[in-house]
């Protein structure tokens, strides 16, 4: 059966309340009983008093009769009659107070008293007539025995009333003790019951709270899927069922997530493998491409050098064109190879001390003829404050600068290109400025991406693999430097890259 926490608490408190109500009722009953008893006692006391009055009045009557005989005075006898009235009143009171069985005894007393009064009247007559002797004789023979019998009867009544009173008093005392005992026992049992009830109810409430606490701790530490067991069938039981369901759901989500993560890891490994395979394929491919290209360039050079005989003048230009295009193809292959090696994580920097002057000189030598051909100014400026020793992979830095300066010359139709090298904090900054076509602002962010040039027509018009900037960026980053560009469309661009002076620290595989 389902019992709510509220119902449990209500039942517990109702039980306790009922107990106290019962105790109260019993107390009321006891008090009423005791007051009845004390009333009885009171009445017994009254009866006793009346009986004593009778007793006293009787003694007075006897005494007054004796006095009347002694002083021979009729008036004294009248006092006896007065005393008789008192006697009758007390007797009437007693009669009203006693139970039925006592009434018979009282009737007898009254009858004897009336008889005694008749005798007293006779005695009074005799005294008035002066017949004292006869009066005395009457007193002795009749009145005295009557009084004595009345006295004995009243004494008996007094004794009975006394005994009854004693027994009532004893009964009352016993009842008091009994009720005290009963009340104490009742109170003790009530308190014990209330405590036990409170303990049972609070235990029933606190136990599932503890269980939930432990269970939630388990959840918090990431152990999902457990079951919380509470004996309650109340709201706590429902909560526990919810918690168990929540935990199972969490376990399900957790395992799902783990599985998804595992799948991702596996997928990632697969992708990495595929990427590596691709890079290796490219590396092999470009090597295979280079072998025939080597032969093409070799034969062309020997042909041009006149190794096979004199070269007709009209052959010179096409031969030069073959060589130019062959070298271009070689650069493309090299770029693809470099990029694939970087991506495969197989590109390593050879970091050693190098001279910026040598690098700039080499770039200048390589590109001077191109600049002259295009009629462009080609300047190099080296800051006087450059450190003596700089660390880096000279070959790669040269390649970077060659890429930037080569691009600058390609994209500039008039004006010039300037290479500047200056110290920039804890790094050396290489800058290449041109007065070329510039780069639209929305494409500035993309120029370092792979296969990016301002647009596809640029590739056709100016040549280049579209990989140069991307490779340059990767080499710079491998050195721990950064690369950026400032440009205004139609006015020219300036590319900067930095190589940290202590670049040896990051000279590892990318």
């Amino acid at each position, binding site marked *: 059966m389902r019992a709510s926490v509220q119902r449990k608490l209500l039942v517990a408190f109702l039980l306790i309340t009922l107990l106290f109500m019962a105790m109260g009722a019993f107390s009321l009953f006891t008090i009423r009983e005791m007051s009845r008893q004390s009333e009885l006692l009171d009445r017994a006391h009254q009866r006793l008093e009346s009986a004593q009055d009778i007793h006293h009045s009787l003694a007075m009557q006897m005494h007054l009769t004796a006095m009347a005989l002694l002083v021979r005075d009729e008036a004294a006898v009248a006092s006896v009659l007065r005393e008789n009235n008192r006697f009758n009143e007390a007797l009437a009171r007693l009669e009203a107070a006693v139970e039925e069985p006592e009434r018979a005894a009282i009737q007898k007393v009254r009858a004897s008293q009336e008889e005694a009064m008749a005798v007293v009247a006779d005695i009074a007559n005799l005294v008035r007539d002066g017949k004292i002797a006869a009066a005395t004789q009457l007193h002795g023979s009749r009145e005295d025995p009557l009084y004595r019998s009345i006295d004995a009867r009243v004494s008996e009544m007094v004794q009975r009333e006394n005994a009854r009173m004693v027994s009532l008093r004893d009964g009352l005392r016993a009842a008091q003790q009994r009720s005290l005992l009963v009340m104490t026992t009742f109170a003790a049992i009530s308190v014990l019951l209330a405590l036990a009830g409170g303990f049972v109810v609070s235990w029933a409430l606190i136990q599932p709270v503890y269980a939930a606490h432990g269970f939630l701790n388990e959840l918090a530490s990431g152990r999902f899927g457990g079951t919380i067991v509470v004996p309650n069938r109340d709201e706590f039981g429902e909560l526990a069922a919810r918690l168990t369901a929540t935990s199972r759901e969490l376990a399900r989500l957790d395992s799902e997530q783990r599985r998804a993560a595992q799948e991702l890891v596996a997928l990632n490994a697969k992708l990495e493998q595929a990427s590596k395979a691709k890079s290796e394929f490219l590396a092999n491919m470009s090597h295979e491409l*280079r*072998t025939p290209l*080597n*032969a093409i360039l070799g034969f062309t*050079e020997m042909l041009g050098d006149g190794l096979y005989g004199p070269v007709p003048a009209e052959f010179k230009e096409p031969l030069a064109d073959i060589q130019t295009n062959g070298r271009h193809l070689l650069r493309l292959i090299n770029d693809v190879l470099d990029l694939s090696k970087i991506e495969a994580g197989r590109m390593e920097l050879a970091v050693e001390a190098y001279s910026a002057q040598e690098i700039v000189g080499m770039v200048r030598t390589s590109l001077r003829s191109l600049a002259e051909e295009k009629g462009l100014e080609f300047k190099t400026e080296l800051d006087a404050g450059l450190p003596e020793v700089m660390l880096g992979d000279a070959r790669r830095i040269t390649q970077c600068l060659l890429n930037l300066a080569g691009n600058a010359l390609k994209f500039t139709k008039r004006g010039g290109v300037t290479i500047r090298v200056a110290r920039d904090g804890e790094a050396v900054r290489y800058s290449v400025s041109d007065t070329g076509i510039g780069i639209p602002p929305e494409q500035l962010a993309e120029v370092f991406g792979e296969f990016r040039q301002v647009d596809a027509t640029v590739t056709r018009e100016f040549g280049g693999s579209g990989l140069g900037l991307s490779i340059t960026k990767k080499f710079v980053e491998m050195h721990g430097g950064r690369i950026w560009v400032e440009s205004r469309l139609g006015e020219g661009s300036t590319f900067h890259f930095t190589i940290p002076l202590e670049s040896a620290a990051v000279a590892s595989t990318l």
Partner: protein
Amino acid sequence: MSQKTILYVEDNEFNRKIIRQLLAQTSYRLREAHDGESGVRAALEELPDLILMDVQLPKISGLEATRRLRADARTAAVPIIIVTSYALDGDAQKAKDAGATAYLAKPYSPRDLLAKIREIIPEA
């Protein structure tokens, strides 16, 4: 001075042809081998004045062949030019480590190669 002999170890026919035609204009005598093993054998049969060794060769690589020749007392002092492949990073260092006298990256200019040869063993 007598004619100087160059042993060229290379598996690609066209590359051998280039060197053949290049050296035909000079006083150098050319011998050819098509793989690493036969290259080592040829060098030991008749000591050349210079060995031109490609890296990627069938059977054993140019590097391994160079190491074997350097290990043999007869060929230990023969100059060896290794034609490194740009494709394999650190080839220059590997060539040095194997005991090469000089190295040249492919694709090379026949003109430059000839200059290098002349530098090491001047023509008779």
